[in-house]
């Protein structure tokens, strides 16, 4: 287990700059998510840490060793791929044992550690199967066992859950978190799914156009986005119109800042709320029922605001009625312009 330090790394493909002076630290034993839209450079960063790409400039340290010129096969990492990349010509046990065989571990030791890793992912009974005979979730676990069996310094995950359907994905998230805690390995996880990143990671790094925009704990990043892009990428943001700021209690002076709230922080009512809360008048446009939750679209001074709450907590209001939107002042985000 080691910490990973990426400093001033730049990676170009032809004329395209995929990583632009990226500096980020991954502390020992942490669970990190690299989050960003497609083309933001998150996968490039992961593959550069893995050693598939060598950066044009900058350094990468895994533990105490500078590895930016070391090819992937010598970096002692574990990696999980989007489509699992299980070897179809080998059994589950041989897949998991592949890295041990390469390291010339004795056959007894190999068998013991393979069994141990399969036990950890609860697939002890499937050692003799072929990957083709497994379900998506089981393949996923085999890929995880294969990535950690060599006790690598760092575990790299490239959108490993994106091929699973939603319910299975939630199960696997819990499982992944459990295993990561159990073995305490430094883990870097690439995803474009902000919910997944917020659920799993201790730390989130947000990328945009090859640059790191923000790094922080999930709650920090969610509550205190550094710019409009981050605010909008992590969840929906309702922007307070400049013309409506005067009557509101804001967390700071408005010069150079804009203010926003999250949909789940809002309350909707027909009566004007008591003073002490921030409130704005609007017009209910639409109410969308989605099981336990419901979403309301409200027109606030020409801006379209989104509100989510438990369906039963939202009063019955007809569309196009005048409403009040209110929230607790400390739930206001101040975002630099």
């Amino acid at each position, binding site marked *: 287990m080691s910490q990973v330090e990426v400093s001033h790394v730049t990676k170009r493909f032809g004329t395209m700059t995929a990583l632009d002076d990226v500096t980020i630290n991954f502390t020992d034993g942490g669970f990190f998510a690299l989050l960003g839209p497609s083309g933001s450079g998150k996968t490039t960063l992961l593959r550069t840490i*893995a050693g*598939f790409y060598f950066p044009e400039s900058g350094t990468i340290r895994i533990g105490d060793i500078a590895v930016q010129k070391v*090819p*992937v*096969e*010598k970096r*002692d*990492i*574990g*990696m999980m*791929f*989007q*489509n699992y*990349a*299980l*070897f*179809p*010509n*080998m059994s589950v046990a041989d897949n998991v044992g*592949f*890295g041990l065989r*390469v*390291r010339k571990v004795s056959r007894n030791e190999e068998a013991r550690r393979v069994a141990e890793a399969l036990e950890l992912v609860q697939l002890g009974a499937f050692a003799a199967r072929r990957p083709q005979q497994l379900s998506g979730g089981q393949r996923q676990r085999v890929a995880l066992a*294969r*990535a950690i069996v*060599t006790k690598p310094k760092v575990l*790299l995950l490239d959108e490993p859950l994106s091929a699973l359907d939603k319910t299975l994905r939630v199960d696997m998230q819990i499982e992944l978190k459990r295993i990561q805690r159990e073995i305490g390995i430094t883990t870097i996880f690439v995803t474009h799914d902000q919910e997944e990143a917020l659920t799993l990671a201790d730390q989130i790094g947000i990328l945009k156009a090859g640059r790191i925009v923000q790094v922080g704990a999930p709650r920090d990043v969610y509550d205190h986005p550094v710019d409009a892009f981050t605010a909008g990428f992590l969840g929906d943001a309702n922007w307070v119109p400049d013309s409506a700021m005067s009557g509101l209690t804001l967390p700071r002076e408005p010069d150079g800042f804009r203010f926003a709230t999250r949909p789940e922080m809002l309350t909707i009512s027909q009566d004007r709320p008591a003073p002490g809360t921030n409130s704005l008048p609007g017009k209910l446009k639409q109410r969308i029922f989605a099981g336990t939750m419901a979403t309301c679209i409200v027109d606030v001074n020409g801006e379209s605001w989104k509100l989510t709450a438990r369906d039963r907590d939202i009063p019955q209001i007809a569309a196009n009625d005048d409403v009040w939107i209110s929230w607790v002042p400390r739930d206001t985000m101040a975002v630099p312009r």
Partner: protein
Amino acid sequence: MAGTLNMTDRRRLAMLLTPAYLWLLIAVFLPLAAMLFFSFLTKMPQDGPDWAITLDNYSAFLTNPTYGTLLIKSLQLGMIVSVICVIIGYPCALVLAKSIKGRAREALFLMVILPFWSNSLVRIFSWAIVLRGNGVLELTLNAVLPFDLNLNLMFTTHAVVIGLVHSYLPYVILTSYLALQAIDDDLIDAARSMGASKLTILRRLLLPLSLPGLLAGVVLVFVPVVGSFMEPRILGGRMGTYYGTLIEDQFVAVYNWPLGAALSFILLAVVLVILAVASPVLKGART
């Protein structure tokens, strides 16, 4: 299933399929069946009414050791050519499929398989020009080397092997390339992330996964080489007597068609055995 087709569909189906398959029946399958029949005759029916059924043509194969020797010689030739094609062609397919990318790969692949669809007779003839004594190869080598070399490869077994490798090499490259190209690059990346060297990746991943394609190529080389006669005739001269030329002789020189038919059928049987043995692996080639 037939049951789900209505009458109109059935009629259409028959209309579309019958001409092609009737043609194949008359031009390929009936001739093969007829030849099997003729191989049991003393003489061809068109040569006179006094023909009879006999096993002589097949027993000739057993009693005359020349025939068996030539068949073995042809099988050996097929093996040598196949092995050389694999040794030369597989690395080439590997480079094409896994090292070269994009438009360059497409263009190079086309260049490799283009000659294989061009006239085989002409290509064999071109080797005759290159290999003959005082030919281009000898002159070039003597111009480059400090000593004089008397290199007359023409009319040797080497010439036959070179010509056949030239003719059939693209088969092995084609099938191996298709098999290798189908292997997901993520598998290679995964193996590398676990510390595997290039050799390990080749040995434990690429080779096993592309084996069906490689074997398909081997069969596609081996079968026609065993039945080749034009190449040994042109490049082998007096050394070029093989099982294929033996059959050719029965039809164009000796005019013993029943014997030729029997010899052809023995070859066909050998080919079918080879195809049958290879078929479980080959099925994997067409995933």
